[in-house]
Protein backbone atom coordinates (compact mmCIF):
# COMPACT_ATOMS: atom_id res chain seq x y z
CA UNK A 1 0.00 0.00 0.00
CA UNK A 2 2.81 2.43 0.92
CA UNK A 3 4.28 2.22 -2.58
CA UNK A 4 1.09 3.36 -4.31
CA UNK A 5 0.68 6.58 -6.28
CA UNK A 6 -1.77 9.31 -5.29
CA UNK A 7 -4.17 8.16 -8.03
CA UNK A 8 -3.99 4.54 -6.80
CA UNK A 9 -4.47 5.54 -3.16
CA UNK A 10 -7.39 7.76 -4.08
CA UNK A 11 -8.98 4.90 -6.00
CA UNK A 12 -8.41 2.50 -3.09
CA UNK A 13 -10.15 4.97 -0.77
CA UNK A 14 -13.00 5.46 -3.21
CA UNK A 15 -13.50 1.72 -3.63
CA UNK A 16 -13.37 1.24 0.14
CA UNK A 17 -10.40 -1.14 -0.04
CA UNK A 18 -9.02 0.92 2.82
CA UNK A 19 -10.23 3.83 4.94
CA UNK A 20 -8.30 7.04 5.41
CA UNK A 21 -7.96 6.22 9.11
CA UNK A 22 -6.31 2.89 8.23
CA UNK A 23 -4.11 4.48 5.59
CA UNK A 24 -3.07 7.28 7.95
CA UNK A 25 -2.26 4.77 10.70
CA UNK A 26 -0.18 2.76 8.23
CA UNK A 27 1.97 5.81 7.47
CA UNK A 28 2.17 6.90 11.13
CA UNK A 29 3.47 3.40 11.95
CA UNK A 30 6.07 3.66 9.21
CA UNK A 31 7.18 7.04 10.56
CA UNK A 32 7.65 5.48 14.01
CA UNK A 33 9.57 2.52 12.57
CA UNK A 34 11.92 4.87 10.75
CA UNK A 35 12.35 7.41 13.54
CA UNK A 36 16.12 7.09 13.15
CA UNK A 37 15.93 8.95 9.81
CA UNK A 38 14.81 12.05 11.78
CA UNK A 39 12.69 13.13 8.83
CA UNK A 40 10.03 14.73 11.02
CA UNK A 41 10.22 17.50 13.60
CA UNK A 42 6.58 17.06 14.61
CA UNK A 43 4.43 13.96 14.07
CA UNK A 44 0.78 14.95 14.11
CA UNK A 45 -0.35 11.52 15.39
CA UNK A 46 -3.66 12.22 17.16
CA UNK A 47 -4.89 15.07 15.03
CA UNK A 48 -4.04 13.18 11.84
CA UNK A 49 -6.41 10.40 12.84
CA UNK A 50 -9.14 12.95 13.56
CA UNK A 51 -8.54 14.53 10.14
CA UNK A 52 -8.67 11.06 8.56
CA UNK A 53 -11.99 10.34 10.27
CA UNK A 54 -13.36 13.62 8.91
CA UNK A 55 -12.07 12.68 5.46
CA UNK A 56 -13.77 9.27 5.63
CA UNK A 57 -17.03 10.95 6.61
CA UNK A 58 -16.65 13.45 3.80
CA UNK A 59 -15.98 10.68 1.30
CA UNK A 60 -19.04 8.72 2.48
CA UNK A 61 -21.13 11.81 1.66
CA UNK A 62 -19.70 11.93 -1.85
CA UNK A 63 -18.02 15.31 -1.29
CA UNK A 64 -14.53 14.34 -2.36
CA UNK A 65 -11.47 15.61 -4.14
CA UNK A 66 -8.55 13.53 -5.35
CA UNK A 67 -6.71 14.25 -2.09
CA UNK A 68 -9.55 13.60 0.35
CA UNK A 69 -8.13 11.20 2.93
CA UNK A 70 -4.63 11.10 1.40
CA UNK A 71 -1.86 11.60 3.97
CA UNK A 72 0.69 14.35 3.32
CA UNK A 73 3.78 15.69 5.09
CA UNK A 74 4.51 19.42 5.18
CA UNK A 75 7.89 21.07 5.40
CA UNK A 76 8.16 22.81 8.76
CA UNK A 77 8.48 26.17 6.99
CA UNK A 78 4.71 26.31 6.31
CA UNK A 79 2.67 27.78 9.16
CA UNK A 80 0.12 25.29 10.47
CA UNK A 81 -2.54 26.60 12.81
CA UNK A 82 -2.33 25.17 16.31
CA UNK A 83 0.72 23.10 15.40
CA UNK A 84 4.40 23.68 16.06
CA UNK A 85 6.09 25.51 13.14
CA UNK A 86 9.82 25.71 13.85
CA UNK A 87 11.49 26.37 10.47
CA UNK A 88 14.25 24.12 11.84
CA UNK A 89 15.33 26.82 14.30
CA UNK A 90 15.72 27.27 18.04
CA UNK A 91 14.29 30.74 17.37
CA UNK A 92 10.89 29.16 16.62
CA UNK A 93 11.25 25.96 18.66
CA UNK A 94 8.19 27.02 20.72
CA UNK A 95 6.20 28.69 17.93
CA UNK A 96 2.66 27.39 17.61
CA UNK A 97 1.30 29.18 14.58
CA UNK A 98 -1.94 31.15 15.02
CA UNK A 99 -2.80 30.72 11.33
CA UNK A 100 -2.43 28.45 8.31
CA UNK A 101 -0.26 29.16 5.27
CA UNK A 102 -2.29 29.32 2.05
CA UNK A 103 -0.65 26.09 0.83
CA UNK A 104 -1.74 24.34 4.05
CA UNK A 105 -5.25 25.79 3.78
CA UNK A 106 -5.55 24.50 0.22
CA UNK A 107 -4.54 20.95 1.19
CA UNK A 108 -6.80 21.06 4.25
CA UNK A 109 -9.71 22.18 2.08
CA UNK A 110 -9.03 19.31 -0.32
CA UNK A 111 -9.33 16.89 2.61
CA UNK A 112 -5.66 15.83 2.78
CA UNK A 113 -4.46 14.50 6.14
CA UNK A 114 -1.40 16.18 7.71
CA UNK A 115 0.96 13.45 8.98
CA UNK A 116 3.39 15.96 10.43
CA UNK A 117 6.01 18.59 9.80
CA UNK A 118 9.28 17.61 8.19
CA UNK A 119 12.82 18.47 9.23
CA UNK A 120 14.78 21.06 7.28
CA UNK A 121 17.87 23.21 7.31
CA UNK A 122 17.43 26.13 9.70
CA UNK A 123 15.36 28.83 7.93
CA UNK A 124 15.96 26.80 4.73
CA UNK A 125 19.62 27.83 4.69
CA UNK A 126 21.60 24.75 3.81
CA UNK A 127 22.10 22.01 1.26
CA UNK A 128 22.46 19.03 3.59
CA UNK A 129 19.87 19.37 6.36
CA UNK A 130 22.77 19.59 8.80
CA UNK A 131 21.98 23.16 9.91
CA UNK A 132 18.69 22.04 11.50
CA UNK A 133 18.41 22.79 15.23
CA UNK A 134 16.64 19.42 15.42
CA UNK A 135 19.64 17.43 14.13
CA UNK A 136 20.35 16.15 10.62
CA UNK A 137 18.10 13.89 8.57
CA UNK A 138 19.68 10.68 7.26
CA UNK A 139 19.44 9.68 3.62
CA UNK A 140 17.26 6.53 3.45
CA UNK A 141 19.42 5.16 0.62
CA UNK A 142 22.59 5.31 2.71
CA UNK A 143 22.47 6.48 6.29
CA UNK A 144 26.03 7.82 6.10
CA UNK A 145 24.88 10.30 3.45
CA UNK A 146 23.01 13.60 3.73
CA UNK A 147 19.50 13.77 2.23
CA UNK A 148 20.26 17.18 0.72
CA UNK A 149 18.57 20.36 1.77
CA UNK A 150 16.94 22.42 2.71
CA UNK A 151 13.81 20.25 2.21
CA UNK A 152 15.74 17.17 3.40
CA UNK A 153 13.05 15.85 5.73
CA UNK A 154 10.37 15.96 3.02
CA UNK A 155 12.72 14.24 0.53
CA UNK A 156 13.70 11.49 2.97
CA UNK A 157 10.06 10.98 4.02
CA UNK A 158 8.87 10.46 0.44
CA UNK A 159 11.92 8.34 -0.50
CA UNK A 160 11.38 6.03 2.49
CA UNK A 161 7.64 6.03 1.77
CA UNK A 162 6.82 7.53 5.18
CA UNK A 163 4.39 9.79 3.32
CA UNK A 164 2.91 9.43 -0.17
CA UNK A 165 3.75 13.07 -0.96
CA UNK A 166 5.24 16.11 0.76
CA UNK A 167 5.56 19.84 0.33
CA UNK A 168 8.90 21.60 0.03
CA UNK A 169 10.29 25.04 -0.75
CA UNK A 170 13.07 26.04 -3.10
CA UNK A 171 15.12 29.25 -2.92
CA UNK A 172 18.32 28.03 -4.62
CA UNK A 173 17.59 24.34 -5.14
CA UNK A 174 16.00 23.27 -1.86
CA UNK A 175 13.37 21.08 -3.54
CA UNK A 176 15.39 19.81 -6.52
CA UNK A 177 18.71 19.02 -4.82
CA UNK A 178 17.24 16.86 -2.00
CA UNK A 179 14.89 15.26 -4.54
CA UNK A 180 17.97 14.28 -6.57
CA UNK A 181 19.87 13.02 -3.51
CA UNK A 182 16.92 10.92 -2.32
CA UNK A 183 15.76 9.57 -5.69
CA UNK A 184 12.40 11.32 -5.86
CA UNK A 185 10.64 13.85 -8.11
CA UNK A 186 10.52 17.51 -7.09
CA UNK A 187 9.37 20.62 -8.91
CA UNK A 188 9.94 24.29 -8.16
CA UNK A 189 7.16 26.15 -9.96
CA UNK A 190 7.61 29.53 -11.66
CA UNK A 191 8.00 32.38 -9.21
CA UNK A 192 4.54 33.67 -8.30
CA UNK A 193 2.66 30.42 -9.03
CA UNK A 194 2.34 29.17 -5.43
CA UNK A 195 1.35 31.54 -2.65
CA UNK A 196 4.11 32.44 -0.20
CA UNK A 197 1.58 33.53 2.45
CA UNK A 198 2.45 31.75 5.69
CA UNK A 199 5.62 30.28 4.19
CA UNK A 200 8.37 31.61 6.46
CA UNK A 201 10.45 33.93 4.27
CA UNK A 202 14.11 33.35 3.49
CA UNK A 203 14.73 35.32 0.25
CA UNK A 204 11.40 36.71 -0.90
CA UNK A 205 12.25 37.26 -4.58
CA UNK A 206 13.46 33.66 -4.92
CA UNK A 207 11.36 31.50 -2.53
CA UNK A 208 8.78 29.20 -4.06
CA UNK A 209 6.85 26.25 -2.64
CA UNK A 210 6.36 23.04 -4.58
CA UNK A 211 5.65 19.30 -4.53
CA UNK A 212 8.04 16.48 -3.56
CA UNK A 213 6.70 13.19 -4.83
CA UNK A 214 7.44 9.75 -6.24
CA UNK A 215 6.47 10.67 -9.78
CA UNK A 216 5.73 13.51 -12.18
CA UNK A 217 2.09 12.41 -12.16
CA UNK A 218 1.82 12.84 -8.38
CA UNK A 219 3.57 16.22 -8.68
CA UNK A 220 1.04 17.36 -11.29
CA UNK A 221 -1.81 16.41 -8.96
CA UNK A 222 -0.23 18.35 -6.09
CA UNK A 223 0.38 21.40 -8.26
CA UNK A 224 -3.30 21.41 -9.16
CA UNK A 225 -3.99 22.01 -5.46
CA UNK A 226 -1.10 24.36 -4.73
CA UNK A 227 -1.10 26.83 -7.64
CA UNK A 228 -3.31 29.86 -8.03
CA UNK A 229 -3.64 33.54 -7.28
CA UNK A 230 -3.69 34.54 -3.62
CA UNK A 231 -4.58 38.11 -2.64
CA UNK A 232 -2.71 37.58 0.63
CA UNK A 233 0.64 37.32 -1.21
CA UNK A 234 1.59 40.58 -2.94
CA UNK A 235 3.89 38.71 -5.35
CA UNK A 236 1.34 36.03 -6.27
CA UNK A 237 0.61 36.22 -9.99
CA UNK A 238 -2.86 36.21 -11.44
CA UNK A 239 -1.98 33.67 -14.11
CA UNK A 240 -4.33 31.03 -15.49
CA UNK A 241 -3.65 27.62 -13.92
CA UNK A 242 -4.04 24.66 -16.28
CA UNK A 243 -4.96 21.13 -15.20
CA UNK A 244 -1.38 19.89 -14.93
CA UNK A 245 -2.46 16.27 -15.36
CA UNK A 246 -4.22 16.90 -18.69
CA UNK A 247 -1.06 16.98 -20.81
CA UNK A 248 1.05 14.41 -18.91
CA UNK A 249 0.70 11.72 -21.52
CA UNK A 250 1.07 13.94 -24.60
CA UNK A 251 3.71 12.73 -27.08
CA UNK A 252 7.02 14.56 -26.85
CA UNK A 253 7.86 13.71 -30.41
CA UNK A 254 9.68 16.66 -32.01
CA UNK A 255 10.07 18.54 -28.72
CA UNK A 256 13.35 20.46 -28.65
CA UNK A 257 15.43 19.86 -25.52
CA UNK A 258 18.35 22.19 -24.93
CA UNK A 259 21.62 21.01 -23.43
CA UNK A 260 23.55 23.93 -21.93
CA UNK A 261 27.23 23.20 -22.40
CA UNK A 262 28.01 25.10 -19.18
CA UNK A 263 26.22 22.33 -17.25
CA UNK A 264 28.48 19.60 -18.57
CA UNK A 265 31.91 21.08 -17.86
CA UNK A 266 34.51 20.72 -15.15
CA UNK A 267 33.11 19.87 -11.74
CA UNK A 268 30.51 17.40 -13.01
CA UNK A 269 31.19 13.91 -11.70
CA UNK A 270 31.56 11.21 -14.36
CA UNK A 271 28.89 8.94 -12.84
CA UNK A 272 26.34 11.77 -12.85
CA UNK A 273 27.27 12.66 -16.46
CA UNK A 274 26.75 9.01 -17.44
CA UNK A 275 23.20 9.07 -16.03
CA UNK A 276 22.36 12.32 -17.83
CA UNK A 277 23.63 10.78 -21.09
CA UNK A 278 21.36 7.78 -20.56
CA UNK A 279 18.38 10.11 -20.05
CA UNK A 280 19.25 11.93 -23.28
CA UNK A 281 19.15 8.57 -25.12
CA UNK A 282 15.74 7.72 -23.61
CA UNK A 283 14.34 11.09 -24.65
CA UNK A 284 15.71 10.66 -28.17
CA UNK A 285 13.95 7.32 -28.25
CA UNK A 286 10.72 9.17 -27.39
CA UNK A 287 11.26 11.46 -30.38
CA UNK A 288 12.73 14.52 -28.66
CA UNK A 289 15.30 16.58 -30.56
CA UNK A 290 18.41 17.55 -28.64
CA UNK A 291 19.96 20.95 -29.34
CA UNK A 292 22.96 22.66 -27.81
CA UNK A 293 22.29 25.96 -26.02
CA UNK A 294 24.40 28.45 -24.11
CA UNK A 295 23.88 29.94 -20.66
CA UNK A 296 27.20 31.80 -20.37
CA UNK A 297 26.36 33.87 -17.29
CA UNK A 298 25.00 30.91 -15.33
CA UNK A 299 28.56 30.11 -14.26
CA UNK A 300 28.32 33.25 -12.10
CA UNK A 301 24.95 32.32 -10.59
CA UNK A 302 26.39 31.10 -7.28
CA UNK A 303 28.28 34.36 -6.51
CA UNK A 304 25.22 36.36 -7.59
CA UNK A 305 22.92 34.28 -5.39
CA UNK A 306 25.20 34.60 -2.35
CA UNK A 307 24.68 38.34 -2.44
CA UNK A 308 20.96 38.49 -3.20
CA UNK A 309 19.70 35.65 -0.99
CA UNK A 310 21.64 36.70 2.15
CA UNK A 311 20.70 40.35 1.56
CA UNK A 312 17.01 39.48 1.45
CA UNK A 313 17.45 37.09 4.38
CA UNK A 314 19.14 39.72 6.55
CA UNK A 315 16.11 41.93 6.01
CA UNK A 316 13.50 39.18 6.44
CA UNK A 317 15.08 37.75 9.58
CA UNK A 318 15.22 41.13 11.30
CA UNK A 319 11.68 40.33 12.50
CA UNK A 320 13.07 37.77 14.94
CA UNK A 321 13.79 40.08 17.85
CA UNK A 322 12.24 38.32 20.85
CA UNK A 323 9.29 40.72 21.13
CA UNK A 324 6.19 39.28 19.45
CA UNK A 325 6.82 35.53 19.15
CA UNK A 326 9.56 32.94 19.29
CA UNK A 327 12.63 32.79 21.47
CA UNK A 328 13.74 35.50 23.89
CA UNK A 329 17.07 35.36 25.79
CA UNK A 330 16.76 34.71 29.51
CA UNK A 331 19.14 37.37 30.79
CA UNK A 332 19.52 40.79 29.22
CA UNK A 333 20.04 44.45 30.08
CA UNK A 334 18.59 47.13 27.81
CA UNK A 335 16.53 46.68 24.65
CA UNK A 336 19.52 46.48 22.30
CA UNK A 337 21.10 43.88 24.56
CA UNK A 338 17.86 41.86 24.48
CA UNK A 339 17.84 41.91 20.68
CA UNK A 340 21.50 40.96 20.40
CA UNK A 341 21.39 38.10 22.89
CA UNK A 342 18.06 36.78 21.62
CA UNK A 343 19.36 36.63 18.05
CA UNK A 344 22.78 35.28 19.06
CA UNK A 345 21.20 32.45 21.04
CA UNK A 346 18.21 31.80 18.76
CA UNK A 347 20.00 31.54 15.40
CA UNK A 348 22.49 28.83 14.43
CA UNK A 349 25.94 29.27 12.88
CA UNK A 350 24.93 29.22 9.21
CA UNK A 351 21.94 31.52 9.65
CA UNK A 352 24.13 34.08 11.42
CA UNK A 353 26.69 33.75 8.64
CA UNK A 354 24.07 34.54 6.00
CA UNK A 355 22.58 37.41 7.99
CA UNK A 356 26.04 38.94 8.26
CA UNK A 357 26.86 38.37 4.58
CA UNK A 358 23.63 40.13 3.67
CA UNK A 359 24.10 42.91 6.18
CA UNK A 360 27.54 43.59 4.75
CA UNK A 361 26.31 43.54 1.13
CA UNK A 362 23.62 46.08 1.98
CA UNK A 363 25.73 48.32 4.21
CA UNK A 364 26.65 51.89 3.29
CA UNK A 365 29.53 52.03 0.82
CA UNK A 366 29.17 48.45 -0.40
CA UNK A 367 25.65 48.43 -1.85
CA UNK A 368 26.67 49.23 -5.44
CA UNK A 369 29.60 46.81 -5.51
CA UNK A 370 27.60 43.90 -4.18
CA UNK A 371 23.82 44.21 -4.18
CA UNK A 372 23.36 46.35 -7.28
CA UNK A 373 26.02 44.40 -9.17
CA UNK A 374 24.26 41.15 -8.30
CA UNK A 375 20.88 42.49 -9.43
CA UNK A 376 22.39 43.43 -12.79
CA UNK A 377 24.03 40.04 -13.14
CA UNK A 378 20.71 38.47 -12.29
CA UNK A 379 19.22 40.07 -15.38
CA UNK A 380 22.05 38.76 -17.58
CA UNK A 381 21.42 35.27 -16.21
CA UNK A 382 17.68 35.57 -16.89
CA UNK A 383 18.32 36.97 -20.40
CA UNK A 384 20.48 33.94 -21.22
CA UNK A 385 17.47 31.70 -20.61
CA UNK A 386 15.22 33.88 -22.79
CA UNK A 387 17.71 33.51 -25.64
CA UNK A 388 18.12 29.76 -25.07
CA UNK A 389 14.35 29.23 -25.18
CA UNK A 390 14.29 30.66 -28.71
CA UNK A 391 15.84 27.42 -29.91
CA UNK A 392 14.46 24.89 -27.41
CA UNK A 393 11.32 24.09 -25.40
CA UNK A 394 12.99 22.88 -22.20
CA UNK A 395 16.53 22.69 -20.85
CA UNK A 396 18.05 19.47 -19.53
CA UNK A 397 21.09 18.87 -17.36
CA UNK A 398 22.26 17.37 -14.08
CA UNK A 399 20.51 18.56 -10.91
CA UNK A 400 23.71 18.34 -8.87
CA UNK A 401 27.40 17.81 -9.73
CA UNK A 402 27.66 14.72 -7.47
CA UNK A 403 25.48 12.22 -5.66
CA UNK A 404 24.71 12.77 -1.96
CA UNK A 405 27.87 13.45 0.03
CA UNK A 406 28.71 12.04 3.45
CA UNK A 407 27.32 13.61 6.61
CA UNK A 408 29.86 16.01 8.09
CA UNK A 409 32.04 16.14 4.98
CA UNK A 410 31.25 19.78 4.07
CA UNK A 411 30.10 21.34 7.32
CA UNK A 412 33.40 23.18 7.88
CA UNK A 413 33.53 24.62 4.39
CA UNK A 414 30.55 26.87 3.57
CA UNK A 415 31.80 27.72 0.07
CA UNK A 416 32.09 24.02 -0.89
CA UNK A 417 28.56 23.54 0.47
CA UNK A 418 27.26 26.51 -1.57
CA UNK A 419 28.72 25.15 -4.82
CA UNK A 420 26.39 22.18 -4.54
CA UNK A 421 23.60 24.32 -5.91
CA UNK A 422 25.50 25.45 -8.99
CA UNK A 423 22.99 23.93 -11.44
CA UNK A 424 19.81 24.74 -9.52
CA UNK A 425 20.35 28.41 -8.58
CA UNK A 426 20.01 29.88 -12.11
CA UNK A 427 16.31 28.88 -12.35
CA UNK A 428 15.57 30.68 -9.06
CA UNK A 429 17.35 33.84 -10.17
CA UNK A 430 15.39 33.82 -13.45
CA UNK A 431 12.14 32.77 -11.71
CA UNK A 432 11.69 29.81 -14.05
CA UNK A 433 10.16 26.42 -13.24
CA UNK A 434 12.67 23.63 -12.58
CA UNK A 435 12.13 19.94 -11.90
CA UNK A 436 14.38 17.10 -10.78
CA UNK A 437 13.52 13.52 -11.65
CA UNK A 438 15.27 10.37 -10.44
CA UNK A 439 17.26 8.90 -13.32
CA UNK A 440 19.75 6.38 -12.03
CA UNK A 441 22.33 5.54 -9.39
CA UNK A 442 25.89 6.76 -9.05
CA UNK A 443 28.98 4.58 -8.58
CA UNK A 444 28.33 4.74 -4.82
CA UNK A 445 24.79 3.39 -5.22
CA UNK A 446 23.25 6.75 -4.28
CA UNK A 447 20.53 8.31 -6.48
CA UNK A 448 21.17 10.72 -9.35
CA UNK A 449 18.67 13.36 -10.43
CA UNK A 450 18.27 15.03 -13.78
CA UNK A 451 16.95 18.57 -14.00
CA UNK A 452 14.56 20.12 -16.51
CA UNK A 453 14.05 23.90 -16.66
CA UNK A 454 11.17 25.41 -18.59
CA UNK A 455 9.80 28.73 -19.77
CA UNK A 456 7.74 30.86 -17.40
CA UNK A 457 4.54 29.04 -16.42
CA UNK A 458 5.48 26.00 -18.53
CA UNK A 459 5.43 23.53 -15.63
CA UNK A 460 3.03 21.32 -17.60
CA UNK A 461 5.68 20.71 -20.25
CA UNK A 462 8.28 19.68 -17.66
CA UNK A 463 5.77 17.31 -16.08
CA UNK A 464 4.88 15.96 -19.53
CA UNK A 465 8.54 15.17 -20.31
CA UNK A 466 9.04 13.72 -16.81
CA UNK A 467 5.94 11.55 -17.07
CA UNK A 468 6.85 10.21 -20.50
CA UNK A 469 10.33 9.37 -19.20
CA UNK A 470 8.80 7.65 -16.19
CA UNK A 471 6.52 5.60 -18.49
CA UNK A 472 9.58 3.98 -20.09
CA UNK A 473 11.86 3.79 -17.02
CA UNK A 474 11.31 2.74 -13.42
CA UNK A 475 13.82 4.82 -11.44
CA UNK A 476 10.92 6.63 -9.75
CA UNK A 477 9.60 3.31 -8.42
CA UNK A 478 12.91 2.29 -6.90
CA UNK A 479 13.14 2.63 -3.16
CA UNK A 480 15.93 1.98 -0.68
CA UNK A 481 16.32 -1.75 0.03
CA UNK A 482 15.23 -1.64 3.67
CA UNK A 483 12.01 0.19 2.73
CA UNK A 484 10.88 -2.38 0.18
Amino acid at each position, binding site marked *: MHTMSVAELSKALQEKQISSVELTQLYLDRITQQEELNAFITVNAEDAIAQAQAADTRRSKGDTTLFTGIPIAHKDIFCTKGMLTTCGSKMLA*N*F*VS*PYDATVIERFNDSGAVTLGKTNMDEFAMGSSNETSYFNPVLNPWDRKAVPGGSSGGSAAAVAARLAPVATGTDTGGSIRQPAAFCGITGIKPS*YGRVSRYGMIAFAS*SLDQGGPMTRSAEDAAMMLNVMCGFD*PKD*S*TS*LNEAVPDFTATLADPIDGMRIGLPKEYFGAGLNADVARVVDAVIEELKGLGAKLVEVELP*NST*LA*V*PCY*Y*VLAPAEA*SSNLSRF*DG*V*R*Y*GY*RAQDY*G*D*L*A*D*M*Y*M*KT*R*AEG*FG*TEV*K*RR*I*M*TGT*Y*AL*SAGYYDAYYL*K*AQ*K*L*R*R*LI*ADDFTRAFESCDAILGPTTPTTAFDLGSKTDD*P*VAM*YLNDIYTIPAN*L*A*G*LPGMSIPAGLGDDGRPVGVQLVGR*YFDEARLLNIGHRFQQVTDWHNQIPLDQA
Partner: protein
Amino acid sequence: MSLSRQDVEKIAELARLKLTDDEIADYTQTLSRILSLVEQMNAADTNDVEPMAHPQDTRLRFRDDAATAPDRRDALQAIAPKTEAGLYLVPKVVE
Protein backbone atom coordinates in the same frame (compact mmCIF):
# COMPACT_ATOMS: atom_id res chain seq x y z
CA MET B 1 38.35 40.88 -0.20
CA SER B 2 39.58 40.01 3.26
CA LEU B 3 37.67 41.17 6.31
CA SER B 4 39.29 42.15 9.56
CA ARG B 5 38.11 41.23 13.03
CA GLN B 6 36.92 44.81 13.44
CA ASP B 7 34.89 44.57 10.22
CA VAL B 8 33.12 41.48 11.53
CA GLU B 9 32.44 43.14 14.90
CA LYS B 10 30.89 46.07 13.05
CA ILE B 11 28.74 43.81 10.83
CA ALA B 12 27.57 41.84 13.87
CA GLU B 13 26.62 45.09 15.59
CA LEU B 14 24.59 46.19 12.54
CA ALA B 15 22.94 42.76 12.39
CA ARG B 16 22.17 42.86 16.13
CA LEU B 17 24.11 39.67 16.90
CA LYS B 18 26.20 39.30 20.05
CA LEU B 19 29.08 37.07 19.02
CA THR B 20 31.66 35.25 21.13
CA ASP B 21 35.37 35.70 20.43
CA ASP B 22 35.50 32.27 18.82
CA GLU B 23 32.59 33.10 16.56
CA ILE B 24 34.21 36.37 15.49
CA ALA B 25 37.40 34.50 14.59
CA ASP B 26 35.46 31.89 12.62
CA TYR B 27 33.28 34.38 10.76
CA THR B 28 36.28 36.57 9.93
CA GLN B 29 37.65 33.62 8.01
CA THR B 30 34.48 32.23 6.42
CA LEU B 31 32.97 35.60 5.49
CA SER B 32 36.22 36.56 3.75
CA ARG B 33 36.04 33.36 1.72
CA ILE B 34 32.42 34.01 0.83
CA LEU B 35 33.31 37.53 -0.33
CA SER B 36 36.06 36.08 -2.52
CA LEU B 37 33.46 33.80 -4.09
CA VAL B 38 31.06 36.71 -4.51
CA GLU B 39 33.68 38.89 -6.19
CA GLN B 40 33.78 36.48 -9.12
CA MET B 41 30.80 38.58 -10.21
CA ASN B 42 33.29 41.18 -11.41
CA ALA B 43 34.05 38.93 -14.38
CA ALA B 44 30.71 39.99 -15.90
CA ASP B 45 30.35 43.32 -17.67
CA THR B 46 27.15 44.81 -16.29
CA ASN B 47 27.44 48.32 -17.67
CA ASP B 48 24.09 49.57 -18.96
CA VAL B 49 22.27 46.55 -17.52
CA GLU B 50 19.04 47.32 -15.73
CA PRO B 51 19.03 45.76 -12.22
CA MET B 52 16.47 42.95 -11.82
CA ALA B 53 14.53 42.86 -8.56
CA HIS B 54 11.66 40.57 -9.49
CA PRO B 55 11.60 37.63 -11.90
CA GLN B 56 8.69 38.93 -13.94
CA ASP B 57 9.50 42.62 -13.45
CA THR B 58 5.95 43.17 -12.30
CA ARG B 59 5.10 45.90 -9.84
CA LEU B 60 3.91 45.08 -6.38
CA ARG B 61 0.16 44.97 -6.22
CA PHE B 62 -1.57 47.47 -3.98
CA ARG B 63 -4.75 46.74 -2.10
CA ASP B 64 -7.49 49.10 -1.03
CA ASP B 65 -6.80 50.87 2.23
CA ALA B 66 -9.50 49.02 4.10
CA ALA B 67 -9.45 46.92 7.25
CA THR B 68 -9.85 43.28 6.25
CA ALA B 69 -8.04 41.24 8.91
CA PRO B 70 -10.08 40.40 11.99
CA ASP B 71 -8.89 41.56 15.42
CA ARG B 72 -6.94 38.60 16.81
CA ARG B 73 -4.95 40.35 19.50
CA ASP B 74 -5.45 37.64 22.13
CA ALA B 75 -4.43 34.79 19.83
CA LEU B 76 -1.42 36.68 18.56
CA GLN B 77 -0.27 37.80 22.00
CA ALA B 78 -0.70 34.33 23.48
CA ILE B 79 2.55 33.34 21.74
CA ALA B 80 4.55 36.43 22.75
CA PRO B 81 7.39 36.11 25.27
CA LYS B 82 5.98 38.86 27.54
CA THR B 83 2.75 40.85 27.43
CA GLU B 84 0.70 42.88 29.87
CA ALA B 85 -2.68 44.57 29.41
CA GLY B 86 -2.61 43.87 25.67
CA LEU B 87 0.87 45.33 25.22
CA TYR B 88 4.18 43.70 24.34
CA LEU B 89 6.72 44.15 27.13
CA VAL B 90 10.35 45.06 26.42
CA PRO B 91 13.07 46.61 28.61
CA LYS B 92 12.53 50.28 29.40
CA VAL B 93 13.68 52.47 26.49
CA VAL B 94 13.02 55.99 27.83
CA GLU B 95 14.11 56.84 31.36
